[in-house]
């Protein structure tokens, strides 16, 4: 372990460049002869393109070319794809409409790209974009997922009749209906999970560059998974075969899911670079474009019913959800409201029968895909709002009701695919109850009341699934990719190390935690380890970072490669020190013969591997190993969050007084980084509960919350200091015993906040975001 090993709060290695302004983000890259792209975007939510006149734009100063969807189609550039096949109840495959990188004939949401101007400067490109004249025939739009299948709703894609993409289900309908029929009590709940904009502070950027001599493309972009981008752009969009396309994602300024997906602008910049003769084409999104084109998150409308027996044990849970996927199916959108959502509907509870139906629909809105948590926040919000509501209506303590129904023995097979491997839900609940001083709540409520305020407390006992896997299982469920990770450990002749990883860091601190792992094994110090990621020319292949997978999956691949490196180093050392391989141990940067004083520096062994002067007979020189790791199961982080709020009944303002988060992430590499991940997730979850929400004009389909002026991002004075801590049950599924911590905060927190507010003001439900005006209206019966 040591001061730079596993479990240590090592200050981040990557920070120095960020705090001195030396980070290298995509927009900081200016290639020689760069040209700039500006997109002409649809002002209408749904319209037919009657004509496009680019004459004036083409004649404008500095303009190199103006390209349209017809040009793209003419060059036989393929459309974007959704990489997870979902089948409907009747066995039919999902109905995916075409998604051209530039709209052709029809635009389907405000912001859909209609043309692109390439010019010498960004300002010239933007000026000329204003001169592109487009005639539209405006069509009726639908933005509400609950209305997308109405008879009078417009048809958005010819492939999806009634705008229904799929009508999927999971679980046992008959058993669940029987449980509901036989129940002592049933609790019904209608829940809306609001639509959110991920808004990483770095906007998306793409630079496409074509080398005519080599017939080779390079894409610099703000991606969480550059290899997947290359795969899609090669195999489906058809830009170039993989060996002729390099994708580089340098420092990336946050993603939260929104930078997983393959976006139209990447295709356009690559294609346009070739079209204009090989000069690089750069596009930098502004924030307005980010609101109009980055995939949004959530947007579920759900009706659910839970059955309890006379002893308040859950006997069944039935769920019907409509999921809005927006105007086009984004890269992984289909998996979010299905396998990432409904498979978690058992929560932390032993529920014998579950049945869920999910209808995914097209609407004239920005595409919806994974956003921090992806499906699991929707499941958690539903279950934990349901548990709190049930406790109130059954007249029992909400902590007691949860405790009674907790899964208590592992492994636990739920009725919805997941098999929970390890956990101790009572431990996190008990720790959180102690931290918040639950026993003191009545006195605190009375004190608030005496001041004219209303105090409330809300629980959320979440479970989530990280490190989505194994490849064979997800393949059988429709995934178009495997979900393993790769690593390569290169020991240099001087004994320093490069780790090439298919994971990608965009804030998570991999350069530090991954180096801690190597140091833990070899003891060479984190500063002798370099983590290399984000470049398809350097790293052979990888699946990238999302779904809290980089610890449990990405680091496990490094462990496997390190195992091989150690094994070879031990063979070499045994040979050099004339000892038995079994007696060799590696620690503190030394390779030793156990029980003797024989030792040599790890660097010495490395050098010996490369000089090749004296190696065991038949051994290849060099010390470099790679590994692919495919997990055997998901990991299941869990925890208890408790939020305590004080509401001012005169203004409806909600003050978060305390927020206690107790998480079980299994083993932790760097507690400082893990806490930071929880803080960030909590801010996003509290943002969803109190502040954030997308509003569209229902008639015109205009995005009304299209800037930071209209869409309320959580700011420092909206949030409290968080009280975070952990408990540990070791994950048996991977060599490090880790579970994943990147999304828990965003998954667990929204129901805790809403449960606290509804407790404070004595209402059954309040829609997120619970703004002061909504809270005030709920309190004063003026909804």
């Amino acid at each position: 372990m040591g001061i730079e090993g596993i479990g240590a709060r090592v200050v981040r290695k990557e920070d120095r460049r960020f705090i001195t302004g030396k980070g290298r983000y995509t927009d900081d890259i200016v290639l020689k002869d760069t040209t700039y792209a500006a997109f002409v975007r649809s002002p209408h939510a749904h319209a037919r393109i009657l004509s496009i006149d680019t004459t004036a734009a083409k004649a404008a100063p500095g303009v190199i070319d103006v390209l349209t969807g017809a040009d793209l189609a003419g060059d036989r550039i393929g459309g974007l794809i959704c990489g997870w096949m979902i089948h409907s109840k009747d066995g039919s495959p999902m109905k995916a409409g075409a998604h051209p990188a530039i709209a052709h004939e029809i635009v389907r949401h405000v912001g859909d790209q209609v043309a692109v101007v390439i010019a010498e400067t960004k300002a010239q490109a933007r000026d000329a974009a204003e001169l592109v004249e487009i005639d539209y025939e405006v069509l009726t739009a639908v933005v509400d997922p609950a209305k997308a299948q109405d008879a009078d709703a417009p048809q958005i894609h010819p492939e999806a009749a009634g705008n229904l993409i799929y009508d999927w289900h999971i679980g046992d309908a008959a058993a669940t209906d029987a449980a509901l029929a036989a129940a002592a009590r049933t609790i019904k709940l209608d829940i809306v999970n609001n639509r959110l904009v991920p808004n990483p502070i770095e906007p998306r950027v793409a630079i496409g560059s074509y080398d005519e001599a080599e017939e080779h493309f390079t894409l610099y972009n703000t991606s969480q998974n550059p290899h997947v981008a290359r795969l899609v752009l090669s195999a489906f969009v058809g830009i170039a075969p993989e060996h002729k396309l390099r994708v580089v994602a340098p420092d990336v300024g946050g993603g939260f899911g929104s930078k997983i997906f393959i976006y139209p602008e990447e295709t356009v910049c690559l294609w346009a670079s070739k079209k204009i003769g090989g000069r690089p084409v750069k596009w930098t999104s502004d924030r307005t474009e980010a609101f109009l084109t980055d995939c949004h998150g959530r947007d579920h409308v759900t009706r659910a019913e839970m059955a309890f027996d006379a002893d308040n044990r859950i006997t069944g849970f039935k769920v019907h959800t409509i999921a809005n996927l927006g105007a086009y199916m984004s890269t992984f959108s289909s998996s979010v409201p299905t396998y990432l959502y409904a498979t978690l509907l058992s929560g932390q509870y032993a529920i014998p029968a579950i049945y869920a139906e999910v209808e995914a629909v097209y609407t004239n809105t920005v595409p919806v895909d994974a956003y921090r948590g992806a499906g699991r926040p929707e499941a958690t919000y539903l279950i934990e709002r349901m548990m709190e509501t049930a406790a109130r209506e059954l007249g029992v303590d909400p902590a007691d009701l949860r405790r009674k129904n907790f899964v208590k023995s592992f492994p636990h097979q739920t009725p919805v695919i997941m098999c929970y491997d390890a956990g101790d839900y009572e431990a996190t609940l008990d720790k959180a109850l102690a931290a918040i001083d639950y026993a003191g709540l009545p006195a605190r409520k009375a004190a608030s009341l005496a001041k004219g305020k209303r105090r409330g407390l809300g629980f959320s006992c979440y479970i989530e699934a990280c490190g989505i896997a194994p490849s064979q299982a997800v393949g059988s469920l429709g995934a178009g990719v495997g979900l393993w990770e790769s690593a390569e450990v290169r020991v240099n002749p001087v004994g320093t190390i490069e780790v090439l990883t298919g994971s990608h860091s965009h804030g998570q601190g991999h350069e530090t935690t991954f180096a801690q792992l190597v140091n833990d094994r070899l003891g060479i110090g984190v500063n002798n380890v370099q983590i290399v990621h984000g470049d398809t020319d350097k790293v052979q292949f990888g699946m990238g970072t999302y779904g809290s997978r980089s610890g449990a999956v990405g680091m496990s691949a490094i462990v496997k490669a390190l195992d091989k490196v150690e094994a070879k180093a031990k063979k070499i050392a045994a040979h050099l020190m004339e000892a038995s391989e079994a007696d060799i141990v590696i620690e503190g940067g030394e390779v030793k013969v156990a029980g003797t004083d024989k030792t040599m520096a790890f660097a010495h062994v490395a050098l010996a591997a490369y000089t090749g002067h004296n190696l065991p007979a038949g051994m290849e020189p060099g010390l470099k190993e790679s590994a692919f790791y495919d997990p055997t199961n998901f990991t299941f982080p869990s925890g208890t969050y408790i939020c305590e709020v004080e509401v001012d009944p005169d203004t409806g303002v909600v003050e978060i007084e305390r927020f206690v988060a107790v998480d079980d992430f299994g083993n932790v590499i760097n507690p400082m980084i893990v806490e930071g991940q929880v803080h960030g997730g909590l801010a996003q979850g509290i943002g969803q509960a109190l502040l954030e929400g997308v509003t569209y004009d229902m008639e015109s389909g205009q995005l009304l919350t299209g800037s930071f002026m209209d869409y309320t991002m959580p700011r420092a004075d909206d949030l409290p200091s968080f009280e975070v801590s952990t408990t540990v049950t070791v994950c048996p599924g991977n060599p490090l015993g880790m579970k994943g911590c990147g999304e828990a905060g965003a998954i667990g927190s929204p129901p805790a906040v809403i449960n606290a507010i509804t407790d404070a003001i004595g209402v059954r439900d309040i829609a997120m975001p619970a703004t002061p005006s909504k809270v005030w209206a709920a309190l004063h019966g003026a909804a």
Partner: protein
Amino acid sequence: MTAVTLNVNGKRYSADVEDRTLLVQFIRETAGLTGTHVGCDTSQCGACVVLLDDVAVKSCTMLAAQANGGSVTTIEGLARGDQLHPVQAAFREHHGLQCGFCTPGMIMSAVDMIRRHPEGLDEATIRHELEGNICRCTGYHNIVKAIQSAADEMSALPAAAE
């Protein structure tokens, strides 16, 4: 076109720029200092904060011409050689950054905030003062801790702060 001369981090930059050129564009494109970031187009996020004549400004909200003749400090100009400014050091020590994109603006705002509050800072004041800076990664928890710690350190050692 307008002739603009600016002193950025002690170095003089002169250029003829389009009238509409923003200060942040001058810094990033003319001076080539890419530590100052652009996170929005409505003057909300604070990723672009620099010091102009020692006062924090959002460099996306000002024309380069308006700053003509001024002296700009960007994130690149804060450290003295290898010696980090106390605010930079505190952000690192307290894990006040994750992706690092908001960080330059956060640090420059914090430097300005500490200068304006020689009496010291408490948590509520720091949180309130940060209303012009958005961070999507950290939940602000560790940013607040970092600023608090830097403010405490700098008020204890007033000479070291400048």
